[in-house]
């Protein structure tokens, strides 16, 4: 079967790959590009562990074909830290112990970053609704919500 040639941008870098027609963007990221930060939890768009943004829009990469990424701007968890310097959300997740096993964490960080880009000062309720599509079986969510709100506060107060 002939493969599809895709030219796209991931975390600001131009990327080329070959993929099959039915292959998800998540499988392309993990299996063809070695970007294993995005996780497969359910593969059906329920858990949010594979969250990425496409042209700034938060989506599940398991529900998008790799072929659809042609010409788009993809952002994944791998682009979040600035070199060795963690993003405030990443730092606050560690400070608040907002993770245990960590499988859901990349997706939650990407989703939370997408929220704070749109709304730098979300309420707890807005944050909980925005993250309703990111499932975590360890934390009970409270620490996650506190970490996001604390990161938002720090980012608002940053000079």
């Amino acid at each position, binding site marked *: 079967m002939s493969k599809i040639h895709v030219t796209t941008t991931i975390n600001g870098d131009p990327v080329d790959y070959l993929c099959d027609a039915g292959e998800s963007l998540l499988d392309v990221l993990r299996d063809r590009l070695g970007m294993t930060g995005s996780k497969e939890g359910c593969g059906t768009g329920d858990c*949010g562990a594979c969250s990425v943004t496409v042209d700034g829009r938060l989506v*599940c990469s398991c529900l998008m074909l790799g072929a659809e990424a042609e010409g788009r701007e993809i952002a994944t968890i791998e682009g979040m830290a600035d070199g060795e310097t963690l993003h405030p959300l990443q730092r606050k997740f560690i400070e608040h112990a907002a993770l245990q096993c960590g499988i859901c964490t990349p997706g939650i960080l990407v989703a939370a970053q997408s929220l704070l880009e749109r709304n730098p000062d979300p309420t707890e309720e807005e944050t909980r609704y925005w993250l309703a599509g990111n499932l975590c079986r360890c934390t009970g969510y409270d620490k996650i919500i506190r970490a996001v709100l604390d990161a938002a506060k720090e980012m608002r107060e940053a000079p």
Partner: protein
Amino acid sequence: MQYHAPTSIDDALRLLAAKDGNCQILAGGTDLLVRLHSETGDDPESILDIKRIDELRAITPEAGGWRIGAAVSGAEMGEHAGLVADWPGVVEAMNLIGSTQIQGRATLAGNLCNASPAADSVPAMVAAGAMARIAGPEGARDIPVAEVPTAPGRTSLGKAEFITSIHLPARPEGGGDAYLRFIPRSEMDIAVVGCGVALTLDEAGICNAARVSLGAVGPVVMLVEAGAEALIGTAVDDAALDALASVCSDAASPIDDKRGTVAFRTHVAGVLARRAASIARTRAGGAS
């Protein structure tokens, strides 16, 4: 499997005709990709992605109402101030579907063509009197949204046809709409019952037009004519709402399944109709 991403409706129609039916339209993909990856072994020969067709990506004013392209996402609808102001019930119904991530991809036309009896946006569109524009080999045709689903998972579209847009009519003077659903938790679930109401009040606050629809209580979304009759000519007061609840429960013909029993769904159909009509009345400028 092949992937096609044509940039015009004509190119899409040519591809569809050439594939003789063994081709799936890809809009948001939130239902299609789950099916593709479910290992049922009946994958289509081709996938036709309609998101590269520019005119299908826009929300445009038309005839006082709004034309919503088949590739417009729920998130884009929720961010469109004019659309939200005119048809809040339709936008809320669409925005109830899934998570933030799902909203980034899922489309109104896709929710319609997936033909689930529990599709949230469909009762709201039926109540609003929405029309689906269908492109096909003989040109474009417009049909009421209620005529698209024919059974769970089935539509009235021909093999070489696809929906290019949904048109919501001009919001009438004194008009308001609402959609409510019951789910056992606050987010991220499939409707056990859904109800859409669109109504119009005259200057004296008397209802002079109404459309009431129910979802998830039959094989397809139903327009409840008796619901409209219960509201028209009234001030949508308690007596009218009681009558509405009664006829909506009567109209419901649900199944028992893990998400709800016949008795529960029948009762809730009336409860939701009453509440949705009350919200629609407030939105129409009536007493809240």
